[in-house]
């Protein structure tokens, strides 16, 4: 029986001091360098097999890596190994009590992604740090020692993963991994450029966003703004289109889970100056590498630019990120992560400043990671959150002050069995200012007050899953239990989920997923501080299933073909069922509906960071809703959604890329129905015209010195200036230009 493979990618670094060739003289005994920090290299997308790269490192007297070279080329592994190794930090070699430069050899072993994670990293965030001991024993022995370092992993539930390095080359994404989500199969945009989308027929309000396991209300700044997290902090973004692992609960649609980069103790950073904003990120270590500290953020000066053309209007956004970690022992780590986002649009009339749109959210997450022996990790964390929004047309704020705690345990029982489990509790104090100036008879006001009452929401959950390897069959059964309470109402969600991956051939895998997901009623789009209260109408429920095949193709291409079907029960999909969303619809309605979505997804890709890389994603789907006895197409049913991108190296550090996006128009509401008792909707309605856009990107990069580079980037979304028609109205063209300098050290 073969050794089991796990859903998570494992990079195993066998730190082997094969020889210590000293640059110092032989007067005194040489103490070899001791590895303090290391960034986990990612297993390259599209590559296959287990590969070991021998890297020759020169460690300076200050502990920094002066040079790194592979003993022999084996791309893309050798490049990744040397690149990662350059960022590692050591205590310098010592001779006679003085630090000296030294040369050492390391073996960096890449192991092909496993379908399930190893026990040491069984949870996305929990394991990131706990399973990657950044500061091994300070007295690293000269004898060869094997050190485990966690890298990219792939779940049997088959998320679509986007690494920051790759997304940086995707035109129209502006370097933001989150911005690339709408290019993935299964994702149906509402409007081009706006960060709200349907995922396999599930509405935007049913998609959960997590950053390092921390729930956030949204990922993007106002309008078509950038992401709320500096892209340099994002290691990878996973999109679970359905049947997400049991650790992700309380969302009945897709899951977007971002993982932050692991802490690094060497001083490094990056920054960018663009047409509309400036951003930067810096991290360094302290306490001899036991601790790390990171700060980052972005600030827009759109208000300054806008004031030149519309002095009465202000538009601004900003965000910050901070992280401090400290290794209490070689098995314990304490980490504080905090980030926040702020957006505002205002206008001054009659000398009075009006906030037209405003929202913000902040998170502070204190986590404790502990290794319990060789095969078990534990994370305990407490998260404080504060979300607030200005309610449109109502001069008052609505806010959610939350406190959450979670514990996650991962245990590798054997090579064939890994157990994962956890529990969490979240309390959300939902409040809104009393509306000082309001017509009490206004149906909008009444509906708003009924839909968003002041109350305390407490959600308690527990989950467990197992990763089984039975020969060529990898199976991940899971179960989560959630108890929802809101304003005195209670509901229970029991969500069984299972994922299966069968390697029918060396290069071909068959993947199945099936799961049940529950969610409290959700607002039409995620808005900080606005959550429907009292479990009105009960929980939403989705049965999510998919079956697909993925294959490794020649020329480093990978491809997948997946069929999916989602069955929606009791959904609060206001957007999808609105009869005439542009007019008679009201944001504060919450009509319940049944529905289904089925489709076929095609995904063909070659790594965008390759000399010539690209991808093609296509989704053919049909999304239906039923309200009462009426069955109709979802308001944003788009049968065809296709994205294609290409990125190529022009030589001399020039790189160019283009992306083409096209999708079907949305169904047209029957004409003349505004204000009327609506006529039955057709299952084969006329549609708005199809929309397409072309995005371009070109970059010139200068490598300045070790790990330092500068790049000039010109990028534009929708260079074709194509206008989109939505619900019979022409919009735009929504085009976003970006010219800027980016750099890192």
């Amino acid at each position: 029986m073969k050794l089991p493979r796990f859903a998570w990618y494992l990079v195993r670094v066998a730190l082997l001091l094969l020889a210590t060739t000293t640059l110092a003289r032989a007067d005194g005994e040489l103490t070899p360098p001791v590895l303090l920090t290391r960034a986990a290299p990612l297993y390259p997308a599209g590559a296959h097999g287990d590969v070991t790269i021998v890297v020759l490192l020169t460690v300076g007297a200050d502990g920094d890596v002066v040079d790194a070279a592979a003993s022999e080329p084996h791309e893309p592994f050798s490049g990744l190994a040397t690149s990662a190794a350059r960022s590692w930090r050591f205590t310098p070699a010592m001779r006679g009590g003085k630090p000296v430069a030294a040369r050492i050899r390391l073996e960096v072993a890449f192991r092909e992604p496993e379908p399930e994670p190893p026990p040491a990293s069984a949870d996305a965030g929990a394991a990131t740090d706990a399973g990657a001991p950044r500061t091994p024993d300070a007295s690293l022995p000269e004898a060869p020692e094997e050190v485990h370092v966690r890298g990219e992993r792939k779940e049997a539930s088959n998320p679509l993963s986007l690494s920051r390095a790759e997304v940086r080359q995707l035109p129209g994404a502006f370097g933001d991994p989150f911005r690339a989500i709408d290019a993935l199969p299964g994702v149906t945009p509402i409007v081009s450029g706006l960060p709200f989308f349907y995922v396999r027929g599930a509405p935007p309000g049913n998609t959960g966003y997590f950053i390092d396991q921390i729930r956030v209300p949204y990922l993007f700044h106002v309008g078509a703004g950038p992401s709320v997290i500096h892209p340099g902090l994002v290691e990878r973004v996973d999109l679970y289109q359905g049947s997400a692992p049991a650790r992700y609960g309380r969302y009945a649609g897709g899951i977007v889970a971002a993982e932050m980069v692991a802490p690094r103790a060497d001083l490094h950073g990056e920054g960018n100056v663009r047409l509309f904003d400036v951003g930067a990120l810096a991290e360094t270590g302290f306490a001899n590498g036991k601790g790390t500290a990171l700060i980052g953020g972005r600030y827009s000066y759109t208000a300054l630019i806008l004031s030149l053309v519309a002095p009465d209007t202000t538009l601004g956004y900003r965000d910050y990120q901070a992280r401090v970690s400290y290794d209490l022992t070689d098995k314990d780590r304490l980490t504080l992560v905090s980030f926040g986002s702020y957006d505002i649009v205002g206008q001054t009339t009659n000398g009075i400043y009006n906030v037209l749109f405003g929202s913000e959210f902040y998170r502070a997450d204190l986590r404790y990671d502990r290794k319990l022996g060789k095969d078990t990790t534990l994370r305990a964390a407490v998260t404080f959150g504060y979300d607030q929004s200005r309610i449109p047309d109502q001069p008052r704020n609505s806010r959610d002050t939350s406190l959450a705690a979670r514990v996650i345990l991962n245990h590798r029982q054997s090579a064939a069995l890994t157990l994962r489990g956890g529990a969490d509790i979240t309390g959300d104090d939902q409040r809104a200012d009393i509306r000082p100036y309001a017509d009490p008879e206004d149906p909008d006001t009444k509906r708003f007050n009924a839909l968003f009452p002041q109350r305390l929401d407490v959600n308690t959950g527990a989950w467990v899953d197992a990763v089984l390897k039975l020969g060529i069959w990898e199976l991940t059964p899971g179960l989560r239990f959630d108890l929802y309470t809101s304003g005195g109402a209670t509901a229970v969600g029991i969500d069984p989920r299972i994922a299966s991956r069968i390697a029918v051939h060396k290069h071909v895998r068959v993947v199945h997923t099936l799961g049940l997901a529950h969610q409290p009623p959700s607002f039409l789009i995620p808005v900080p501080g606005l959550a429907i209260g009292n479990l009105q109408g009960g929980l939403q429920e989705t049965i999510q299933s998919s079956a697909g095949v993925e294959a490794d193709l020649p020329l480093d291409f990978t491809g997948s073909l997946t069929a999916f079907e989602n069955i929606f029960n009791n959904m609060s999909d206001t957007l999808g069922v609105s009869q005439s969303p542009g007019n008679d619809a009201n944001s504060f309605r919450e009509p319940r509906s049944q529905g289904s979505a089925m489709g076929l997804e095609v995904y063909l890709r070659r790594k965008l960071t390759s000399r010539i890389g690209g991808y093609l994603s296509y989704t053919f789907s049909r999304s239906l809703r039923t309200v009462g006895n009426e069955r109709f197409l979802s308001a944003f049913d788009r049968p065809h959604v296709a994205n294609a991108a290409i990125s190529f190296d022009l030589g001399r550090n020039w790189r160019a890329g283009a992306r083409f996006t096209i999708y079907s128009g949305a169904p047209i509401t029957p004409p003349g129905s505004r204000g009327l008792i609506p006529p039955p909707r057709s299952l084969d309605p006329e549609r708005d015209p199809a929309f397409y856009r072309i995005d371009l990107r070109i970059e010139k990069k200068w490598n300045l010195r070790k790990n330092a580079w500068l790049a000039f980037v010109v990028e534009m979304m929708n260079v074709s200036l194509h206008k989109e028609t939505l619900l019979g109205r022409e919009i735009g063209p929504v085009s976003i230009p970006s010219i800027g300098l980016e750099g890192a050290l």
Partner: protein
Amino acid sequence: MHSLRTLVPVALLAAAAGGAVYACLPADDRPPPASLTVTVSPSPKTLGGFDTSDGWSVRFDRVLMGFGGASLSDTCTAYSEANYDRIFDLGSDAPQKVSTLYAIGECDMRFRVGVPSSDALLGERVDDADKTRMRTPGSDPYLPIGGISLEVSGTGKKAGVQKTFHFTFRPRVRFDRCGIEVDGGVADAGSSVSLKSGEVQQANVRIEAESLFRDSTNANLSHFRFDPFAAADTNGDGEITLDELRLLPVSALTDAGPFDTTLNSSEDTPDATVDRPGRTVRIESVGDFMYIMLMPLLPRLRDTLRCRSSVQLPRADAGR
């Protein structure tokens, strides 16, 4: 470098803690707004009837109207909008509330007569059956599909002859730029409301159903006439219908009074061809004249001000 490594963690700790608890979104610290309560009430003639210049005594049995969407133009600082709608039976003398707006500044007030929305509140003597009927799709020569925005029924009596009428109007009509009527048109009033902080104001919209029987859109020159309407009852059943009025040439009115079409819109043309958003309507019949030209004359802001109207007829070939 060493000092940096000491400073940065301290700064980050402060940022992490501070950022988590500091909320930036400003509170609402604007000065208190004025409140403006919009009401509707019937004109005396709508309530008690009126006599025409050609000797008819006209009384209304019921005037049912979908009314709402009250809002203010951008020159006011709006604090709170309440652009919902209601259904009014204009058989009651007392003003009935439409909605209350909160704002500061000088601006234009807007409102609409239209098919009631699903949220429409019911005024006095209006029930759910009325709402359902008004929201049920129907058609007429001017709109291929639409509900009922205005329903007018009544009787005309003259010398022992009695004619009943029951007209339904389906278009949505938006009103704005209300001002003093000058030569049948609207003087550019600039701002129809002036709202200062803390004030409590009321703006009544008077509904003049009798305007459906004018022989001109110029209220200062026109007369109320019913003979042409009575003459439209060609089948002699005593009930005047819109279809019958469409068969009656507009000359029946032009011959009797100062008929013109130049008063309602800057887009109007003097040769009785009226440009409306989405279509051009040629006023050829009494029915055309009443449906397209007279119906928008019913509302009067603050009982006197005439408003510019925009009749929404969605299809260019509708009715022809």
